[in-house]
């Protein structure tokens, strides 16, 4: 069963053959949503600049690359170490995916309390298909996002995290997606589910990292449901190879008095887009949606966010900092919607970009859409260069120019990094920023000062 493919996926030939081997191929409901996904994707096609929120990011290069599905051998690519973000993965849970395939030998179960279920998508579909059916696709909204449809059709990897009511996970859970270790262009489609029941707390660190030089396409969808009074810290580093395409879509529901804190650090990838939609559904729900992007060469990074206030006294805070060198380009589209019911909303959005070269470019589009009367909302977008007075100040104290420039970049990005409440993660992300800097000559331990 499951080996008849009624609708061919036009995006990539060769994928139809892979479909019978996809996780949950024996589940008829899953087969149905995959079929629907294919049909819908074929109807929509890849997003083009004709769509309002795709005006500044073109996916033409995807159509020109003959991506192939990953194989089991790809998942076993030789690897001398796992690039953990956190200093000592000792007791910390860690999931590792290589070229889109789960790599069980690197999996650390860690000290997870009871009431926590952490497993790869394939296992969830095998062990608890009813739960998966209840959640998969529940939060992805309408069917207008072609990349979500594509992911639904092809999802072949990813993880599910379930935390029962009141359970607090102290240790951050790290999920590593390693790409680039193939000799041909591959595509993979992680689908992640994070569901926190009332009062639960978790910190998840997602690390997308390119280790080889191969071109690949990661199309990720993450659905997050945060129950009443629960809290999720969701941190992500995207450090793909310079030939990689990373397209990520995240949908988050935040219930009454619950909190969602996110930080996305983008430091690598030819083409990347992080699209996040947050629905503040319950009274008192809070979101902190922050990030930083540091790009060079001809890299392109797009951060598109929508925060929707649907209930009274909901708050959001959004700070993005960008550093663009060479011919790199970035897009920031940040929309805050305040529905009529959402009286007493407090929203604050800021996007600042530092251009290190005259060839770099940012398109920033902050948007407020307000239908309630009692709201406090602000937004701002600025673009500038290194402050020459500050540079002179540092140099006049003996700090060489290259080092002084690095210091000012780090200072600039620091304002966003400060939003990360988990100290270990803040340090790890600060290290990533320092390593991005040219000829990094700082000792990171000293920069942690605060």
């Amino acid at each position: 069963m499951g080996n008849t493919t009624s609708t061919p996926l036009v995006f990539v030939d060769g994928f139809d053959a892979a479909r019978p081997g996809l996780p949950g191929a024996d589940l008829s409901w899953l087969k149905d949503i995959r079929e629907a996904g294919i049909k819908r994707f074929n109807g929509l096609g890849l997003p083009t600049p004709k769509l309002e929120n795709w005006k500044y990011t073109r996916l033409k290069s995807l159509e020109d690359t003959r991506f192939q599905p990953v194989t089991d051998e790809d998942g076993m690519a030789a690897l001398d170490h796992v690039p953990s973000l956190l200093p000592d993965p000792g007791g910390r849970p860690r999931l590792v995916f290589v070229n889109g395939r789960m790599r069980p030998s690197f999996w650390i179960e860690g000290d997870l309390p009871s009431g926590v279920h952490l497993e790869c998508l394939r296992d969830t579909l095998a062990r608890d298909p009813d739960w998966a059916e209840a959640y998969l696709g529940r939060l992805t909204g309408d069917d207008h996002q072609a990349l979500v449809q594509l992911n639904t059709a092809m999802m072949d990897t990813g993880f599910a995290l379930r935390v029962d009511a009141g359970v607090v996970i102290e240790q951050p859970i790290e999920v590593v997606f390693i790409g680039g270790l193939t000799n041909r262009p591959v595509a993979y489609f992680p689908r992640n589910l994070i569901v926190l029941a009332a009062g639960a707390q978790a910190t998840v660190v997602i690390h997308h990292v390119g280790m080889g030089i191969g071109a690949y396409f990661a199309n990720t969808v993450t659905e997050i449901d945060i129950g009443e009074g629960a809290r999720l810290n969701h941190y992500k580093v995207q450090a793909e190879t310079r030939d990689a395409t990373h397209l990520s879509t995240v949908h988050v529901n935040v219930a009454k008095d619950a909190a969602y804190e996110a930080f996305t650090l983008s430091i690598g990838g030819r083409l990347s887009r992080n699209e996040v939609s947050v629905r503040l559904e319950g009274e008192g729900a809070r979101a902190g949606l922050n990030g930083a992007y540091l790009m060079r060469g001809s890299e392109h990074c797009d951060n598109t966010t929508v925060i929707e206030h649907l209930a009274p006294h909901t708050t959001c805070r959004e700070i993005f900092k960008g550093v663009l060198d060479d011919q790199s380009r970035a897009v920031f589209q940040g929309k805050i919607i305040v529905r009529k019911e959402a009286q007493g909303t407090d929203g604050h959005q800021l996007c600042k970009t530092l251009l290190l070269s005259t060839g770099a470019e940012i398109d920033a589009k902050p948007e407020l859409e307000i239908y309630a009367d009692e709201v406090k909302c602000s937004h701002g977008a600025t673009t500038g260069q290194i402050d020459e007075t500050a540079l002179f100040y540092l140099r006049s104290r003996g700090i060489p120019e290259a080092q002084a420039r690095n210091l000012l970049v780090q200072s600039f990005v620091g304002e966003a990094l400060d939003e990360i409440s988990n100290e270990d993660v803040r340090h790890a992300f600060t290290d990533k920023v320092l390593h991005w800097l040219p000829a990094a000559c700082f000792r990171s331990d000293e920069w942690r000062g605060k």
Partner: protein
Amino acid sequence: MSKKKAKKMLEIKNLHVSVDGTEILKGLDLSVNPGEMHAIMGPNGSGKSTLSHVIAGRDGYEITGGRIIFQGEDLTGMAPEVRAAKGIFLAFQYPVEIPGVANTTFLKEALNAIRRFKGEGELDAMQFVKMMRAKTKELGISDDMLKRAVNVGFSGGEKKRNEVLQMAVLNPTLAILDETDSGLDIDALKIVAEGVNKLRSPQRSMLIITHYQRLLDYIVPDKVHVLAHGKIQRTGGKELALELEEKGYAEFDEAAA
């Protein structure tokens, strides 16, 4: 001990400097011996800040004529960080805020950069902390000011004291204080002046750049120069400052007219 003639600390000869094509300094001469403290006074727009910036090596100032000789070496074309390593320090009129970088980190980077340049070993964390303790105690500066980000949220007085602290740590041979009195009330001014006086030494020269005489009540110069219209118009002893306080700079407006 046979002593050869002491080298000049700073010798500026017929200096012409333009900014965006406009000539600001028009043939300035100045000579400072080791250990001396000179005050440069002048009205707004006379070129005082240009002089301080051009000695420290800021970009955007074009030297169209003349020379700046520091301890026998021509500074023309030298990067600001090299000048700093050779012993020039500029205390800023408006010290710059650097969010996210702790003051102590900044000072350590600066000091070690200078030590590397001179071929001296870098100080390790322990040595640095010990040295900082001595300096902050001497200048009455709180530990809190060291932990905070550079100049962020500092009061006007704290910013200027931080400049004095940097001077104490980097130990320059020529310190230029650019309008150090601006934005300070009298109590803050006294504290800053006290710090500067503690750093006076026979090996260190200082240039105090100021519009007003009041700073010179607390920091007593060896010589006072009046800078107007891009040139030193008059040089005298400390009493010249009092005279300027009384009469203002009107006389020099006429001199140029």
